[in-house]
């Protein structure tokens, strides 16, 4: 299992062929209270960089981009009733969606934890 990060403050945790996507602790802190989440449809084919979801805070809407190419297999249904999970536990219960990873080589283009920590400073 490995976790990688994008410049736009998304993370993807890859376990076998499944990637779990969410936003980082830094991102949720910058956004503030999340009040609404728009998630992709299961089965949707995403290319790396596609707009995949929208996270709305009190102040603004933020697009979430697919960190990797793949097919959406599952979305976090709990977020529709409790979008604040993204603030409380972004790396855990506040995940957004899962996808089957199409091309593992794309992982090499993303930041590891140390590089992301530097980026989010």
């Amino acid at each position, binding site marked *: 299992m490995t976790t990688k990060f994008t410049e736009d403050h998304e993370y993807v945790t890859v376990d076998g062929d499944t990637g779990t996507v969410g936003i980082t602790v830094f991102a949720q802190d910058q956004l503030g*209270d999340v*009040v609404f989440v728009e998630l992709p449809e299961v089965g949707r084919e995403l290319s790396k960089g596609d707009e995949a979801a929208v996270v709305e805070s009190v102040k603004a809407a933020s697009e979430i981009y697919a960190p990797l190419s793949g097919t959406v297999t599952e979305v976090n249904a709990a977020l529709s009733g409790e979008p604040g999970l993204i603030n409380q536990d972004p790396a855990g219960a506040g995940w957004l969606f899962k996808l089957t990873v199409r091309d593992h080589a794309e992982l090499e283009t993303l930041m590891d934890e140390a590089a992301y920590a530097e980026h989010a400073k």
Partner: protein
Amino acid sequence: MAERQDTDLLRTPLYDQHVAAKARLVDFAGYALPVQYEGIIAEHKWTRQSAGLFDVSHMGPAFVALGSPTGDADQDHHAISTLVEPLVCGDIAGLKPGQVRYTLLLDETGGILDDLMIARPPAGDASGMLYIVVNAATKDADFERIGKALGAAAKLERADDQALIALQGPSAAEVIADLMPQAAQLSFMNHALVSFDGEVIRIARSGYTGEDGFEMLVPASAAGALWDQLAADERVKPVGLGARDSLRLEAGLPLYGHDLDATTSPIEAGLGFAVSKRRREAADFPGAERILRERTEGPERVRIGLHIEGAPAREGAEILDPEGNKIGVVTSGGFSPSLGRAIALGFVPEHMSDPGTALQVLLRGRVQPATVVETPFVPHRYVRNSKTKPQGPAA
């Protein structure tokens, strides 16, 4: 995402307080101001249930004063009002000592250049003076416009080097009563002078949240001490501009530069109450022809409130009729922490503006249902204490 960057920004007299409270500072109208302290929703709800403390020192307080007052308060008030009234649609001459009035600065076509407060000094204060507070983003243009209109007879003196502090919420009056007992006796839209820490504070019972509360003009040297004392009260928490915006939106209060601009008339904006009766009868304000015509015949568009299903519609989102035709635009929108749903203000043709009318909004290429509702979205809780008289300066 934006990083903290406040080196080139103006600082209010309360900057150190915000840094000490670990507020998230942002550029707002050129000032480094807190958008939030602990979180917008928590601060919003605290203001509705107890009392929120706001730094609004970016706004534009000023005084306009006659160069040579006679000393007769009524005569001097009439003279200064005569100079200011040609710019606005409110009855300024009719203000009683201490009274505060919400009014509109208009251009020649009746478009709104700003919304502002104008107050007559309380008994015993300066004769032939008005206290005004305008919006931050418009203050330079407003002050220039007002200064020109005054000519040689009077002068405008800016007071935006002072702090402007608001305390808003159901507990605000109890908190103020402990510090400045006379102020707690004020009725809504009246103001007084009180002493604090050896300084004179100008305090009005007014605000921008829909709650009871106070707005205080405080000399910079006393601002930190007053803020700290208020913030130390367990009923009070500091509240940032994020919650200030969600609170005013729930209260259905328009925000200049968003819900109001120079293309908007007072009647379109639902601010007909700000066109005072005496001024209507005299038709002696800028754009009177258009405004009086719209008042009798109805304007082409009106400001409405919307309940929106699903994601919040933000400023600029199109409003559609049930057939999908564009009929208007959202001018302010967001999430209502009190109602737990998306709400918005916008403009639509008058025949589509009745509460209950089913409309739609266009968000990210998809339509979402919306319903016209009465504003305010959350009822106002102003305190009109008719038994008390406007207060004079502190003894």
